[in-house]
């Protein structure tokens, strides 16, 4: 298969959210001698960005974004080790730690944001719900995360957000981390009050906010989504 045809097929596999095909094509691309970094950038990343743009334009459903991101992840799993093996420039995605705060088991909003961020090329570590401060902190440390995203649906659990931010300060992690919060009762004023770096009202807003914050701060490595 020639390169052009390969990229076309990759495009289709991502657009259709066909994870199995996406992985198979990645393997085939490597076997046929194509540069895995090129395949990632010009094939998969480009495809995902197209899907993202179409979703933003209201042409696609959320599940299509999610399935496309899944296909991307599978391909990345095949390409990443090969890229590392060849010792070339890496594409280490920016890591975001997400969680719904302690005492709150509402999950769906945060999960949607997580899916959006993955589609945008971030690495997402989703800690789930009812996440206490210690787990947020240790995940940030362990994964050297650049972002923390916190969600709360209840005004009674919102105060946990401030506790996590304060603990990030205490442990000296705050300067290297951007904190974004969300949830139906959350407001910009509240985000400012507790010292968060931003807040978002829905998945699309969150994705754009994370992208603009990532672009504004010096990153350790380029995320696929930011690659020109």
């Amino acid at each position, binding site marked *: 298969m020639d390169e052009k045809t390969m990229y076309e097929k990759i495009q289709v596999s991502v657009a259709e959210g066909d994870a199995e095909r996406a992985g198979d094509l990645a393997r085939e691309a490597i076997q046929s001698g194509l540069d895995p970094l090129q395949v990632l950038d010009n094939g998969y990343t480009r495809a995902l960005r197209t899907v993202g743009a179409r*979703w933003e334009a*209201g042409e696609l*459903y*959320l*599940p299509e974004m999610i399935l496309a991101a899944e296909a991307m992840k599978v391909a990345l799993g095949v390409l990443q080790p090969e890229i590392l093996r060849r010792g070339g420039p890496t594409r280490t995605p920016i890591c975001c730690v997400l969680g719904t705060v302690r*005492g709150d*088991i*509402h*999950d*769906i*909003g945060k999960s*949607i944001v997580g899916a959006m961020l993955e589609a945008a090329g971030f690495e997402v570590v989703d800690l789930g719900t009812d996440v206490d401060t210690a787990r947020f902190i240790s995940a940030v440390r362990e994964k050297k995360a650049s972002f923390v995203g916190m969600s709360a649906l*209840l*005004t*009674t659990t919102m*105060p946990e957000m401030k506790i996590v931010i304060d603990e990030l300060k205490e442990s000296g992690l705050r300067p290297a981390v951007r904190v974004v919060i969300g949830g*139906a*009762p959350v*407001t910009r*004023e509240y985000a400012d009050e507790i010292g968060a770096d931003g807040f978002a009202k*829905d*998945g*699309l807003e969150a994705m754009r906010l994370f992208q603009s914050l990532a672009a504004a701060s010096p990153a350790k490595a380029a995320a696929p989504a930011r690659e020109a």
Partner: protein
Amino acid sequence: MQPSLRLMDREAICRVHEGALDILERVGVRYGSGKAEALLQEAGQKFDPRTRTVRIAPDLVQRCLALLPHEVLLAARDPRRDVVLGTGKVHACLDGQGTFTLDAATGVKRVSTLEDLVQATRLSDALESVDYYWAPVLPGDVPDSVRTLVEAVTGFTHTSRHVQHEIRSPAHVPFLLEMFDVLLGDRRRHRDRPIFSLTVCPVSPLQHEAEMTTACVDLARCFVPIVLMPVALAGATAPVTLAGAVLQTVAEFLSGVVLYQLAQPGCPMVLGIGATILDMHTGLYAAGAPELPLLNLALTEIGHHYGVPVMAQGVVTDAKTPGVQAGYEKMASGLTAALAGSDVINGLGLLDSHQLMCLEQLVIDDEIFRMIRRVVRGFEADREHLMLDLIGEVGIGGNFLGKRSTLKYLKAGEHFQPRFSHRGSYDSWLRRNQSELDTAREQVRRILKEHGVLALPAEAARGLREILGRADPSMPAERLAMGSGA
């Protein structure tokens, strides 16, 4: 004769029921509350301590269903305003619970205050459509530690109707029971005069919130009526198909029935409908979706099949202002829920998918629901109403305006009388020179100025204030006074 809408046939209802039993037995639920888990274990149900999953046997579900009362009394401070759910009458209540208030004069959306809640409550007390109170908005200037107690006290004070609300924490239970002592003389009288009822929302799929559930178990033991309202979002926290969302809602409801009937056999319960679709472009709750009427319809039929009253979600909208979208979405959801025979419809007063309170919208919703009530009332077609003799009497080419019977039936409510909608000539509308919003705002102003709420006896007001003061000694005195009217 009264109109009604039908959707499910008996076989479909049975399939949903069997499916729900299967989910509960095979997949189970998580209660999160140690108290709840203990009750289920004592009843011999399978509990996995690692996942904290409880699997519930079908025969236990059936036994608990049989304990549910068919009628649920929601008593009011003014007994003339008592509500009984399950008699076939369609009621409406305030929508709960928004976080923001829309100031229609300035167009500004802002975090709500206690003053907003008090005003909304006093306004609702005057409105014919509102059968009982559910705190429509969350006062952001009240400490979280006592907020739900303050919301309950605001209800007890600023309306004489039944108060329904949620309870967030087991720590609030003793204070609530003390309030029953103050208001009823003795908390044990609450069983016969339930002036307070609970709303509780499981978190789909198949989870209950630990703290709330523990508190509800404590109150179920006092026979406090419980509206169990799963909020399944089709395509996100429930299957994308409406049938799947219905089935999951039923499973979640039944898991609540089992718990609260084990806690207190015969505890009155209501099936609450919080389900709708997730909008697949924004990822947000879609209250105005036409799928909502279908979910209301199906779940109302299933609830009635179980012999339990149903609270539907109607007169609701995703619109952010009192305008065009709010009008059609609220009427569509409200009218269909009422025609389905839902025992109570919540939705009055909020915009933006239950998040944004608007006083002007509340008076408009009152009009909407009064219209809905007229439709539901139907009409009589007996000899008297057919008016054969009168038609003969008026004859060919006459008119009926001056006839005594015309006046008699008008006064008896044969024709709905609008209080908000404009009727009349186009010119009369031009001359009035007032937008719909201005009309609503004028009504809000007039009602708040003129309407007197039946006052709480001074001793009761003091008693409630004292309880709040103990629940949070740091709360400012003016806050206490505003909420408790003392």
